[in-house]
């Protein structure tokens, strides 16, 4: 009996001390306990001095990297807004704060999260990270009159029938179209596709790209897929691309796959053409292993929301510098999109003059408003998807340099 208690005690203290020291470091100034503020907003938002934004995302588990980045982007935005005097509704300024819910990348947990937020009286929610989770909660947002901005749910159908659902990212069909158009303009005739069949982001982009390529008359000579985003080996797929004679391969994957696995393995399998990806490819430079032959990263291109050197406003560059100062690493797209979701809410609340769900929804639904954000300047279309221009960004490596360089090549648009 004694030993059992002892072992429980030891495991417990070990776990507690490790997490406690870990989480203590993470706790950002903006992440003050949301308990009291939640009660404050419950009565009616404009009564208290703070407005609580709900934030749902996978904070732990295998997709934690998406959720935690959305959170750090959103918290940076909140910190900056609060430092600048908060959100001005009428003649009163309100501070922003967040109530974070962890959905662990599971749709049931995501549903529980939004229900809990709604019953806490929160009417402005950011989330969730994946299209699968977001599709489980859009209906709740609509029926309960709660605004929902998904920072990274790219699936086309998320916003189409739901008035209360908006997003700050591209939708799949838009990016797919841009990529296909680029391939057409540059005169590539033999196109290959490598994608992940079990991932909504990857498969959604593949569908959009295939559809656009069909319209533009591009020939898709080979198409290969992997069964999960945790797949480590892409050599066989690229060997087939080589034997099919593909000149350009569309690779809708995330940077954590591109840097260490896909690009080097594609080159090793003898593929020397262009690798064209979507916004998930951004930040590949952070996942290149030391000791890797950097010349393999030549001709890796991707469609992105913004490029700091092409930015029309200074919001993007301000975001990049402040983020780097605060967290000590370069921001990725999830950071930028989470940051933008907060900026959009701020603008909409100030326009509506209220933090009420229905009023903010009406403000967001106004398609004439232009939002100046980290991921570019945009306004919403009727469905709630931003109309953005895409930027084509590419990686290149010059012999002798110590790292690859990322340069904006040109602005892409559908027309």
């Amino acid at each position, binding site marked *: 009996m004694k030993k059992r208690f002892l*072992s429980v005690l030891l495991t417990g203290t070990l776990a507690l001390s490790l997490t406690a020291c870990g989480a*203590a470091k993470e706790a950002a100034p903006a992440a003050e306990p949301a308990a009291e503020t939640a009660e404050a907003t419950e009565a009616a938002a404009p009564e208290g001095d703070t407005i609580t934004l709900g934030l749902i995302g996978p904070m732990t588990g295998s997709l934690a990297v998406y959720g935690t980045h959305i959170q750090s982007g959103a918290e940076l935005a909140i910190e900056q807004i609060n430092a600048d005097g908060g959100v001005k509704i009428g003649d009163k300024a309100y501070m922003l704060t967040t109530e974070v819910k962890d959905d662990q990348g599971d749709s049931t*947990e995501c549903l529980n999260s939004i229900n809990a937020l709604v019953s806490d009286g929160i009417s402005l929610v950011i989330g969730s990270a994946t299209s699968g989770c977001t599709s489980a909660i859009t209906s709740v947002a609509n*029926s309960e009159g709660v605004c929902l901005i998904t920072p990274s749910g790219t699936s086309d*159908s998320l916003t189409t029938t739901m008035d209360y659902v908006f997003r700050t990212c591209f939708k799949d069909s838009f990016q797919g179209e841009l990529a296909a158009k680029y391939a057409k303009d540059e005169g590539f005739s033999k196109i290959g596709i490598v994608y992940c069949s079990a991932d909504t982001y990857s498969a959604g982009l593949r569908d959009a790209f295939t559809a656009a390529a069909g319209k533009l008359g591009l020939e898709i000579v080979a198409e290969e897929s992997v069964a999960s985003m945790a797949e480590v080996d892409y050599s066989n797929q690229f060997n087939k691309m080589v034997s099919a004679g593909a000149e350009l391969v569309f690779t809708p994957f995330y940077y954590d796959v591109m840097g260490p696995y896909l690009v080097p393995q594609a080159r090793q399998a003898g593929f020397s053409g262009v690798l064209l990806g979507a916004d998930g490819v951004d930040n590949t430079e952070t996942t290149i292993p030391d000791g890797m032959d950097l010349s393999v990263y030549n001709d890796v291109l991707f469609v992105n929301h913004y490029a700091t050197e092409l930015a029309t406003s200074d919001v993007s560059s301000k975001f990049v510098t402040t983020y780097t100062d605060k967290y000590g690493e370069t921001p990725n797209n999830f950071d930028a999109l989470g940051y933008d979701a907060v900026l959009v809410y701020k603008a909409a609340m100030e326009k509506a003059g209220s933090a009420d769900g229905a009023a903010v929804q009406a403000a967001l639904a106004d398609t004439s408003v232009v939002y100046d954000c980290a991921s570019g300047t945009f306004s919403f279309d009727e469905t709630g998807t931003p109309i953005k221009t895409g930027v084509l960004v590419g990686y290149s490596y010059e012999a002798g340099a110590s790292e690859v360089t990322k340069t904006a090549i040109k602005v892409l648009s559908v027309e």
Partner: protein
Amino acid sequence: MKKENTAFRYLINLVAIIILMVVFVVLSFHSNNTLKLKVAPAVWQCCYLIIMAASLNLVLGYLGQLSLGHCGFMAVGAYTSALISLALQRAGFYTEKNSIQFAITLIISIVAAAVVAALIGVIVGIPALRLKGDYLAIITLGFGMIIVNLINNIPFCGQQGLAEGAASSALYANGLGFTNDEKQSFMWVGVLIVVLCMTTMVMFVRSKFGRVIRAIRDNEIATSATGNDISYYKILTFVFSAFFAGIAGALYSCANVSLATTSFAFTNGSILNSVFIVVTVVVGGMGSMTGSVIAAIGMFLLNYTIKNGSWVNALPEFLKNVFTYPMLVYSIALVIVILFRPKGIMGDKELSLFDIPGYPKRIASYFKNKKAAKEV
């Protein structure tokens, strides 16, 4: 045990079930925000978790075989029922959830889900004739993986089919997927299905079949020597278990407006996966149906309150940081339960309403015995 005693027990259970149903029917027609946002979704989630745990208990607790792919059957049930309901809705068979047509659709979907899952259960049951223990466990794990992998690759029901594309919103609006309001007003339906399933399973376990199955668990050779066809009973148990997992799958697609195959994987971030169903059964007590029910509800509440409970906010700051990792707390709680109740909460006993008045006495005597044992 005396005859009238048994009849009395049945009477008590019947009364309890009637009271339970009345409570839920009343709750279903009561309008309240907490009820709608918190209780109703929780009841639906508990419904399928209970059926999953109890149906796995048939294989794990009564037949004594470890199955690591139970969620595969649930996936089959969920996708079957979702597709059927979606097809009927597209065909214009029903438009409103509050109609007799939808009731028929619901029944058809649930029965079809159960039957298709049971057919798959036959396929999984066959290896069980030849393999046992950890080897069977890995085979069932394999089957679970294959089912998920195949669903991912079927064009009309992969992640693209129902979680994505135009179908996802269609499933919400008119398919099986219930909104919060509907979840509340149909709460009693979920509870009724659970009561029916549990009654059938308890009857199965207590029947001649159940006795033979337990005999196989305890001594296979002796059971076959007494003239029982072991193969038949083993496959029967697998089929029966898969049948109910299929029903749980149908309930899952009622409770969720969109489906994704990751929810039915071997492990994933949440508590609905094959591994955690095994955990629920063992924590509840292998061979105890009431134990499975208690464990399913308990595990759900633990998981739910770690994330959404207000008591977490009352904790000291450093503990609150620990609770941002729900799986960590959950796992530590599991180890503690296993350490102190290695046979599960109920062991292989059943909780009987008839016995409850006697419990305080028994607990007191338990501690007395323990004290006496220590003094000696």
